[in-house]
């Protein structure tokens, strides 16, 4: 008798369906899989913004001004310090928060105060907001402050802009360009 490597008993009938049924079933399931992938990788279309809307991005990241004035140390105060730390000018380490308000067509769309980063509040602060507005003519008014000291400057910017549908308008702060800028 030959050594047996054949299955002892063929698997139960339902586990081995007949040829045509099997091929048809596989064809259908592979097809369903392909249709599922093919459809849901491209459909339904997605509209990140309404057809008649535009976007204003308010984005500022900067180091605020020190919270107080620098002062000159007296000779007695300097004498108490180690020789390598005798800097005659002492400035506060903490920075001012950034404060921003944005009005569109007279309505306030944003009012944010961003605290400076770091355990000693000596890091930069950042504001990033998306404001969805209707496309078309907009009157934009921005107030920005990065200094809590009395009498500090408040940056203001007013502009009339016309936004196309889907347009992105960026409100940023660039000290070199005089303050608030629109990009």
């Amino acid at each position, binding site marked *: *008798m030959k*050594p*047996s*490597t*054949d*299955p*002892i*008993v063929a*698997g*139960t*009938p*339902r*586990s*081995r*369906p007949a040829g045509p*049924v*099997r091929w*048809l*079933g*596989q064809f*259908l*399931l*592979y*097809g369903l*899989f*392909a249709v599922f*992938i*093919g459809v*849901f*990788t*491209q*459909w339904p*279309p*997605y*509209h*990140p*913004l309404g*057809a008649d809307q*535009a*976007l204003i*991005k308010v*984005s500022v*990241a900067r180091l605020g001004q020190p919270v107080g004035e620098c002062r000159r140390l007296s000779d007695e105060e300097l004498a108490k310090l180690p020789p390598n730390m005798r800097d005659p000018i002492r400035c506060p380490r903490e920075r001012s928060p950034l404060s921003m308000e944005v009005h569109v067509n007279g309505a306030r769309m944003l009012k944010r105060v961003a605290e400076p*980063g770091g355990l000693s509040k000596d*890091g*930069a602060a*950042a504001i*990033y907001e*998306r404001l969805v507005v209707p496309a078309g003519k907009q009157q934009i008014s921005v107030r920005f402050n990065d200094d809590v000291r009395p009498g500090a400057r408040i940056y203001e910017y007013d502009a009339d802009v016309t936004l196309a*549908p*889907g*347009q*992105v308008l*960026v409100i*940023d702060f660039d000290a070199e360009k005089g303050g608030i800028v629109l*990009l």
Partner: protein
Amino acid sequence: MSVINTRGLRQRGLKGWRTVERYFDMAFGSALNPLRHLGTIGFLALWLLAASGVLLYVLYGTSVDGAWLSVEGLAHLPMGLGRLLRGLHRYAADLLMLGVSLHVLREWLHGHEQGARRFHWLTGVPLLVFCSMSAIGGFWLAWDRLGQYSALSTAEWLDALPLLASPLARNFLSHASFNDRMFSLFIFVHVGLPLLLLFGLWFHIQRLAHVAMLPPRRLAFGVILALALLALARPVLSHAPAALDQVPAQLRLDWLLLWLHPLTDATSPGFTLALAGAAVLVLLALPFLPRTPRPAVAVVDPKNCSGCTWCSDDCPYAAITMAPHPDHPGHLLAQVDADLCTSCGICAGACPSSTPFRAGQRLVTGIDMPQLPIDALRRRLHAGLATSKEERPIVMFSCRHGASDAHLRGAGPRGADLHVIELLCAGQLPPSFIEYAMRHGAAGVLVAACREGGCEFRLGERWMAQRLMRQRMPQLRIHASAVPLQLAFAGPGEEPLLDQALHGLRERIPAMSPHMSMNANEAIH
């Protein structure tokens, strides 16, 4: 959600899953059922991504101006090769996410997140995160409107975490602020993370033995063919080039990979971050939820272990290693790592000392399961056959994870002649028990296992069948065709298959001689 509710949900889900699996069995056969090869299908998708990704990278221009042009240029390569390449790459990513998600669901439904398999679950969760992140990063490289939307949306999403002093999204304010260096970051996300994924996969499968890195050849061929045809029939095309001063009006979004972005748009970055974080935490916590006590693990008896290594070879979870025997220099002794043992008993079925023909009141084998020792199996078999009043009794060795045999037990027209002996796994059955049953009066033997490829312990049904087909040690000594032996592969809910197998066996028995020789390959008529 209470533990009881979770259990009920799992049981209902498992019932539904098995129903779907049965439909797939009808088309593919159980051994090629893709729902039982989800892990290896994930591997296949990863290899496809790696191969097509290398070619795409060769053709890719790593710059703001070059990225879109180089990807768009793929659509114009001759013979549709570029479309095939890009489509295969994208759709393989979809397959990877789909396969891995279903793999997670299947393992949870089967309760595989606990016990010795906790390690695989915990090492698998980060892989899901790596897959998602690297897939999303791939869209940025095309640097079209979709890539722009995805990159910006991801940046805004991550900015909800208080990690960076300056928001990541500021990199995408305008063309002036966006430069070629961003593509180094994009490539790190899309290429670097998959390397981490591969490293994580090594951990994921480290505690498994006999790991398949690809699905069966026919299944792999079918999947690749389906993806290739899809790539040609529905090519992946670029949107218009990215324009940071515009919000894209309409996107052909890949909802399988980019669903997080619209959800974030509809809610908030904080909400989806919390959701994603909670999902990961829940997945990581699942293995630690209360569960039924862990069953006893395999125990080695040094006096009866011959050091043959068969148990070590067959253990699906690499829980058995061979060490020098302390009492017999030059010999080996099996050692069980209790943390890795899943208590399947496959090792006991592999042990040559598990033969019931051994003398002795109590049968002690080399490696055994305390909750169902080989000695207890022999006693039950012996007692069942000794007390049988039937002319042609049938012995059924039944895996407790397969189709239920409850309706076949006991007296009655269907089961009066049947003696059911339950096993921890079909792989626990030493083949010599079949010979022993025949020698002690059984007219036929039915071995009921889980579906092919559907073993609760990965390989039990395969090893058992190979042993009985004399392809694996320990072999069935008698010739298969000489034995009234029926093998049935039936999962839970497939009890009619057991009935069918039993009926077939009963029909065959009168035609076969009840006497047989114990010399291999011979039958006495």
